[in-house]
């Protein structure tokens, strides 16, 4: 196993960890707003790490650029979606959960 393969494995595992964390947070957090936190942050990071591993494995700058582009679009859509969902919820008078 080359050094690049080893680094890719580490990056993949980190990505899988953050995807799992995002999903666990999504299931366990108490309300819509806190769940959006879990999705936007952990999932972007999950894809960031897995994308970095794939870019390393591709061995091509153009393919790496394509993965970077996908990551950027993913971040834009994730944050835009969460803003729209949260705003829709607030305007429909959904109260954020407070620690009792």
């Amino acid at each position, binding site marked *: 196993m080359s050094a690049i393969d080893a680094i890719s494995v580490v990056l993949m595992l980190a990505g899988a960890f953050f995807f799992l*964390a995002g999903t666990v947070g999504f299931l366990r*957090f108490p309300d819509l707003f806190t769940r959006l936190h*879990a999705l*936007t*942050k952990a999932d*972007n*990071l999950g894809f960031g790490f897995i994308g970095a591993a794939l870019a390393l494995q591709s061995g091509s700058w153009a393919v790496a650029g394509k993965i970077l582009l996908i990551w950027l679009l993913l971040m834009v859509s*994730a944050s835009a979606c969460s803003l729209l969902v949260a705003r829709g919820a607030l305007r429909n008078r959904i109260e954020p959960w407070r620690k009792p």
Partner: protein
Amino acid sequence: MPANSISTQTRARELLLRLAVLLSLWWVLDEGRADGWWFGAIIIACALALSFAAPFARAPFRWSITGAARFIPYFLYESIRGGWDVARRAFGGAIRVEPSMLTYATHLRQPTARVFFAHVISLLPGTLSTDLREGEVTIHALAGTEAEVRAGTRALEARVAQLFHEEGAAS
């Protein structure tokens, strides 16, 4: 943004910038092959013309390369902190969240900079934009006191101001 000083130089710079962005986009989408260059040239010319057509033309904004160079490492570091923070709270025995809401008045002037600011807030640790109107962002915080959340948001605002050449804006 009122178009107060769009000089020929600014226009030329904008044209070259968009051409460079479209060329690199095509190169990336085509995965570095060069055999379809003539088709790419047609698409790029159409996209360039379209980007200046009225329905798609956006308010011009100023941005700085040094600001971007400083912003990227900061953003990556804060993203990792944000993801780690969520992971810690998600895997903890009891869910440790103490959410609160606050409204943050931004000093950023350009609409593009404000929208960018609101989006990045959601990707950074513990904060989520829930609304943006005029110069006010409503923020949902996962934990922390209001002062802490405001301080973090102000630091981010200063970085965004650097990125968009609005150094005087963030105080």
